[in-house]
């Protein structure tokens, strides 16, 4: 089979289509997901191809979408539901926290919830209030949930396929800034990228940049700039926030001796704190410098006119790189 050059939106669409074709238990639903194909067109054409019983619109109610998904999953389906924007996820959070995440444990493995909850998240597209936050730490702090964030079209397809085939609930957060930011060759055949595995996407020897979602590209850019200044950066794309791939992260930092964690999420109690603590606890004295974080701020996400001030960028990443190198 050939490769296609696709945006992340198209790659996710391809993954959904192929999984729906492969497994009749896979259902795709949410607000505006059916007839319209989603506000970002991620589910475009699915209802037409698979019919309104497999891909459908729900009433406008996020707890309803998540709670119904739990029931569908318990009774043998593979629901892939969409929350239109992650800012509205919190209506559904109670269902995920109180039930989806604990059903396996609560029934000692008799009942399980193999569901995927997809949602676009993050800043950088000048959206309105409640549309730009990055709250992955809340999901990752919830025991029993897996949290996946792709940074490329290729990964988006492979990770989504893995999420759909996973036996447990997966929160699949799509960085909407990357939805149409670039295209990439995506194989037509089905493949999956294991959940819980980070990837070293650029090798380097002086410092490890650790990021996910839209911040991976910022790190890439910072790494290119650092190169010009004679600093060799390794970039790790975390890909799965929970469970975190300690092995890949620690192996890289062990090699470089320095780490900068970059995330859009607010700083305090963000995933950067967890990653930084893990590195310190494990590598401690072997580090050549304390781990640095480049993150969003502990503020309410600014509206579109000053949104850029909030977002980590290559300049800030470079500053942190210089700090750990110094």
């Amino acid at each position: 089979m050939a490769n296609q050059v696709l945006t992340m939106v198209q790659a996710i669409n391809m993954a959904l289509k192929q999984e729906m074709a492969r497994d009749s238990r896979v259902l795709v639903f949410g607000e505006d997901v059916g007839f319209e194909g989603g506000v970002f067109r991620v589910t475009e054409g699915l209802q037409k191809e698979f019919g309104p019983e497999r891909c459908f619109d729900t009433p406008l109610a996020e707890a309803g979408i998540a709670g119904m998904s739990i029931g569908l999953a318990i009774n043998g389906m593979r629901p892939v539901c969409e929350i239109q924007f992650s800012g509205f996820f919190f209506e559904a959070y109670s269902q995920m926290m109180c039930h989806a995440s604990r059903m396996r444990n609560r029934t000692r493995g008799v009942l399980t919830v193999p569901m995927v909850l997809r949602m676009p998240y993050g800043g950088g597209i000048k959206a309105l209030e409640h549309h730009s936050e990055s709250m992955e730490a809340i999901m990752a702090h919830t025991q029993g949930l897996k949290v996946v964030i792709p940074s490329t079209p290729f990964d988006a397809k492979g990770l989504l396929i893995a999420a759909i085939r996973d036996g447990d609930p997966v929160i699949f957060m799509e960085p909407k800034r990357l939805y149409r930011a670039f295209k990439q060759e995506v194989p037509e055949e089905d493949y999956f990228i294991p959940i819980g595995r980070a990837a070293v996407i650029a090798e380097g020897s002086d410092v490890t940049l650790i990021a996910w979602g839209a911040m991976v590209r910022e790190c890439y850019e910072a790494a290119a700039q650092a190169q010009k200044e004679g600093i060799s950066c390794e970039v790790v794309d975390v890909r799965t926030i929970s469970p975190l791939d300690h092995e890949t992260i620690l192996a890289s930092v062990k090699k470089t001796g320095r780490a900068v964690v970059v995330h859009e999420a607010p700083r305090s109690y963000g995933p950067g704190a967890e990653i930084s603590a893990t590195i310190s606890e494990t590598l401690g004295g072997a580090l050549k410098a304390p781990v640095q974080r480049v993150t969003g701020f502990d503020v309410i996400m600014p509206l579109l006119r000053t949104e850029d001030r909030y977002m980590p960028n290559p300049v800030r990443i470079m500053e942190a790189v210089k700090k750990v190198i110094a």
Partner: protein
Amino acid sequence: MFLEKYDPLKNQMVQILDQDGNHKEDLLPKEMTDDVVKDLYEQMVFYRMCDKRMLKMQRTGRMGTFAPLEGQEAAQIGSEFAMKKTDWMVPAFRELAAMCAHGVPVETFFLFWRGNEIGSKYPKDVKVLPSSIPVGSQMLHAVGISLASKLRKEKDITVTYFGDGATSEGDFHEAMNFAGVFKTPTVFICQNNQYAISVPRSKQTASETIAQKAIAYGFPGVLVDGNDLFAMFAVTKEAAERARKGGGPTLIEAYTYRLADHTTADDSTKYRTQEEVDGWRKRDPLLRLQKYLFKKGAWTEKYEAALQENLLKKVDEITEKVEATADQTVDSMFDYLFAEPTQELLEQKAYLKKMLELENKK
């Protein structure tokens, strides 16, 4: 027939057996032969005895906090008897009778509320979800489960239980609305036991009845005497058949009363009068069934004494078994988070084992 004839807006309540044990012959379901009624009566007596045992155990530190069942036996046994064993049940947290009648072993139920996760595991063929403590949240699962049955064109229906307090939750609205829109084979049973802990039903909603709320969602709602086993069975049966035939959901308001406290941590004398409780004691679902059976010549004091003796033996055996059951292992604390354990879970498990060894040495 009940769903059409009884208008919840007019506060009409289905009742077949009154508190004096008199019944309406024309409405008596044909399934209710004397043998069946006796069997159901015995179940109700048994579950009340189990409930009382749990209370006794709680008072002596052998059971955790739980929500007693007393007073709601007919609402649960009547509705459960209208279900097939292949139907799904999605309970709230006061459903000892309904859950165990549908296949959850009583000892398993005891173990869970005793705080032992061994009681989290129901037999595989038992289609009952775990007790759901966050009020109202479980109704949505019932909608999802029944939608899956419908999509696969299976005939199973799903019955979900909740209380009057739950009807104030957003999840109640979303579940009822989704069920109406997707026309799912769901039977919603609200056990209106008059109180959500201390808050009376009148402060929970300005609706005259809870049953009438169904009208807004586009499906029938019916008010039933929840202490009347026959009425609960008859109405649930009609709702179940309707759901099985593709007719969609039904809301049943079982008008009943919690004779005990909300939970073992509650003191209901603070918010309701003895007079009120005594009034409801006269409407006790067991008492009226006893009177009915007596009138039919199927109940004697001797029979009752023998029954009590037999059941007590059974409850004693269950208690013994429960108290002899070891706690969950350290492994099982960590093994059911995911299909495959994560590295962190494995490390945390090893750490805990090591720490427990140290702690036990001291």
